[in-house]
């Protein structure tokens, strides 16, 4: 009887199995060259030629492509091999009997890590069960999405209630005598915080170029959040800084350079975002694996080559009041109270408590509340966090908005929602629905990567951002991989996508008769799900 080592990793244990059709293969080698994971290799197999197999002369050597079996070099299903094969001779097929995760933990004694997004949230998505059902007819006619003038902008920064603006009246005019918290009108989509490190500098650059182009040429005042980890000094010194929201997270990576460059800045940044938590891995700090900490990343962050793990909390923040003080003293003061300072938290059962506290802060310091749902993406996280922690975004945005309504303070701290937007293909619809539920705007990160060519999805395809081997050159720092990314083309795609999104937002605003953002217009929404209707307080329709 043949012996088999059942406790070893076998091909049949892997999440993806390579199907290879030798008869179509012309042995060009493209597939093995393109595979950034080393999951396939050229290999020689001994085959029976004819007659008696025991006779050595009846065997021949055949060159084939073989799937490698290993924890570090298994196939993630990215599909690059299929993409380059001229004959369709190879493809990765999902293995329904996959035992990889259990084998990994049993063999390594480590927590399994990956990038991407939560892979357990694609069925029954709440936003997909909501429709825009209040269509203006007759007395309040729909608008013309093509010909009508729309204003798709939202305030970013602390908004004071009218009675606290401190206006004086001089005859028929209002005059403003006191200094008010900084507030700017921006497009209600913010490019989400992905650091140079988590994504390649080329991908980051493409988003930055798209942001500048959208602002200066297209007229969409979109802002981009830098992510934690610093930004190029040349950008800090440029006039384009005004489109960038600088992020500070618990690791404070990159802030030495930002502070040192302040005297040479010619523009204020668009804002500061203090990242408290991230939806995809709530309660966990940032995680940048050492294999992505390239020399450039080391330089920009001011760190050695090592796994970079930001603490799960800001070490100096231990209460709402204290965090407000910290924002007040450091971030606001840093730019002389000219720049809105917002915070980003992971959506949580506790989000409303946090939001309430910030709303009641007597210093009026917090200029935006970013809530990140659990369907968001990440460069790297422990799989256990990705799959089992977090909170959906939809009900939490609604809860926060209604908590503000309860106090008569809706809109005072603009709400921004993110996490899995566009997951099922309708980014504009997701944004519109969240705005109707009470968000002032949305932020998106992973969706930009999808636009750029990320081959991962929510059903466990690829999700290898943590490895540094991103086959699309998006979440990698390896020059040979990042070269696959055409910076200009990606920037162009993002610009086009946002132009399309803008058109689609109009196509949703027009039928409900809105020429400005319908923040909190939950009366425009319906759902065929009774539980969603009840939970979100929108009309139940069948």
């Amino acid at each position: 009887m043949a012996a088999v080592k059942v406790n070893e990793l076998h091909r049949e244990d892997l999440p993806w199995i390579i199907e290879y059709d030798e008869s179509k293969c012309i042995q060009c080698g493209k597939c093995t060259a393109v595979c950034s994971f080393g999951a396939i290799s050229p290999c020689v197999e001994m085959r029976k030629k004819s007659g008696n197999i025991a006779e050595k002369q009846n065997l021949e050597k055949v060159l084939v492509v073989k799937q490698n079996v290993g924890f570090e070099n298994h196939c993630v299903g990215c599909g690059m091999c299929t993409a380059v094969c001229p004959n369709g001779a190879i493809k990765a097929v999902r293995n329904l009997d996959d035992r990889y995760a259990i084998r990994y933990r049993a063999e390594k004694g480590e927590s399994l890590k990956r990038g991407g997004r939560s892979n357990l949230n694609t069925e029954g998505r709440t936003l997909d069960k909501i429709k825009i059902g209040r269509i203006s007819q007759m007395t309040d006619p729909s608008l013309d999405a093509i010909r009508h003038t729309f204003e798709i902008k939202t305030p970013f920064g602390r908004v004071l209630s009218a009675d606290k603006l401190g206006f004086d009246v001089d005859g028929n005019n209002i005059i403003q005598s006191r200094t008010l918290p900084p507030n700017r009108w921006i497009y209600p989509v913010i490019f989400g915080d992905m650091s140079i490190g988590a994504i390649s500098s080329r991908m980051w650059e493409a988003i930055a170029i798209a942001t500048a182009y959208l602002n200066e040429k297209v007229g969409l005042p979109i802002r981009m959040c830098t992510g934690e980890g610093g930004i190029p000094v040349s950008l800090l010194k440029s006039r384009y800084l005004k489109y960038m929201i600088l992020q500070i997270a618990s690791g404070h990576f990159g802030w030495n350079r930002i502070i040192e460059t302040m005297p040479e800045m010619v523009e204020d940044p668009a804002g500061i975002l203090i990242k408290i938590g991230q939806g995809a891995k709530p309660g966990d700090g940032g995680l940048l694996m050492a294999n992505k900490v390239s020399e450039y990343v080391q330089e920009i962050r001011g760190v050695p080559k090592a796994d970079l793990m930001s603490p799960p909390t800001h070490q100096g923040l231990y209460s709402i009041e204290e965090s407000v003080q910290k924002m007040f003293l450091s971030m606001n003061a840093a730019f002389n109270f000219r720049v809105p300072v917002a915070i980003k938290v992971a959506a949580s059962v506790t989000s409303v408590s946090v939001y309430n506290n910030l709303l009641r802060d007597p210093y009026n310091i917090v200029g935006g509340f970013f809530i990140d749902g659990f369907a968001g993406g990440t460069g790297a996280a422990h799989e256990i966090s990705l799959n089992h922690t977090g909170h959906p975004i939809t009900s939490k945005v609604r809860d926060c908005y209604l908590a503000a309504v309860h106090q008569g303070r809706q809109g005072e701290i603009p709400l921004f929602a993110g996490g899995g937007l566009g997951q099922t293909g309708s980014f504009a619809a997701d944004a519109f629905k969240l705005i109707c539920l009470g968000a002032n705007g949305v932020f998106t990160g992973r969706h930009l990567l999808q636009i750029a060519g990320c081959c991962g999805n929510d059903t466990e395809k690829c999700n290898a951002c943590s490895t540094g081997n991103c086959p699309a050159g998006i979440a990698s720092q390896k020059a040979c991989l990042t070269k696959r990314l055409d910076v200009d083309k990606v920037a162009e795609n993002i610009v086009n996508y946002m132009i399309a999104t803008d058109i689609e937002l109009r196509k949703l605003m027009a039928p409900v008769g809105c020429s400005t953002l319908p923040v909190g217009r939950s009366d425009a929404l319906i759902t065929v799900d009774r539980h969603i209707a009840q939970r979100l307080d929108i009309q139940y329709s069948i």
Partner: protein
Amino acid sequence: MCRIGAIKSKKYLHPSIALKLMRSQQEGHDDSGFAFIMQDLGGIFEHHKDLPILSMAGTVEGTRKAEDILLNLGFKRVLQWTPNINHQKGLKIEPMPNYMFEVVQYPKSHKYATQEEKEELLIDTALKIRKALEEDNSGYIYAFWPDTLVLKEIGSPKDIGTYFSLWEENTELCSKVITAQCRQNTNYDIVRYAAHPFFLEGYTVLANGENTFYEKNRLYQQNLNRAYIGFESDSQCFLYTLHYLHKILKWPIQYYKHVITPLPIEKIEKRTDKDILLRIKASLSHLEINGPNTVLGVLPDYSMVCVCDSKKLRPVVIGRNDDMVVMTSEVAGINELLPDRDLSKDIYPTENETIVIKEDLTVERWQQ
């Protein structure tokens, strides 16, 4: 569709003039109701201008309840007026059993009260009466305020006029400011409270249109002031915003339009007062209306206001002579009242205008 009208005159006018104004616009409305507010009263009310008048309709029980509340609070009846009811057969009207218009003296406790304290008392009392009437559905309180008389009823305006003998002019019932509307608010339940004009603390508003941001307005207004209640009609929001801006915030009336239909940011950015307008736009974004509208209003000093929304508009025209200014939905209404006026002085307001008719009937036109 609503048809609305507002008349301001140097001389006292009988409310039959409002019926005539609306009758000529009959093809534009659905003949489902008639409501009017008279302010700056003459006739039998002329000598009681400082005293509050209760305007209500109710069952016997309802009117008794209201009177009890007033008496318990220390108000004393000075004058009571009830319309002369004409019970003709075949009238299209759904009348209430009783209509009461009662002038009362303030309680002794308020003899030396400030104006503000008196106003607080009137609001508290009106809310108390409304709550009591709602408990057993025994009536409607339309106003409890000096120098103001309100009547709202369901039915054909012509027949409502006949029922209350409003077609017969007299000197007993007259005022210098009359606002009127000919339609029940058919978007929602037929409720008397839902009929324009709406009144609160000296502010009157009536609108022709639809408030697309009703939900936003309502949720924001419900916490702004204890008197912002009901919301039976999306147009009540226009009144509450006017009241909040002018009475509570004490902002000039020219800013009303900057709140309900703020300018696009692109236009604001080019202005010298951009900092203020951007703040207003952000702080009061939940009071924007974003729908087709013409809004007519009366302020506590009896000046009249007219604004339109900035994109879809609803019809309105202003005609005048030396003694009277009429603002209404159709020029046919003005032709009925002022056939010999100088037509070149007619005003067709634009989407950015705020038109104010001052006490002496001078017209101010403010561009947003």
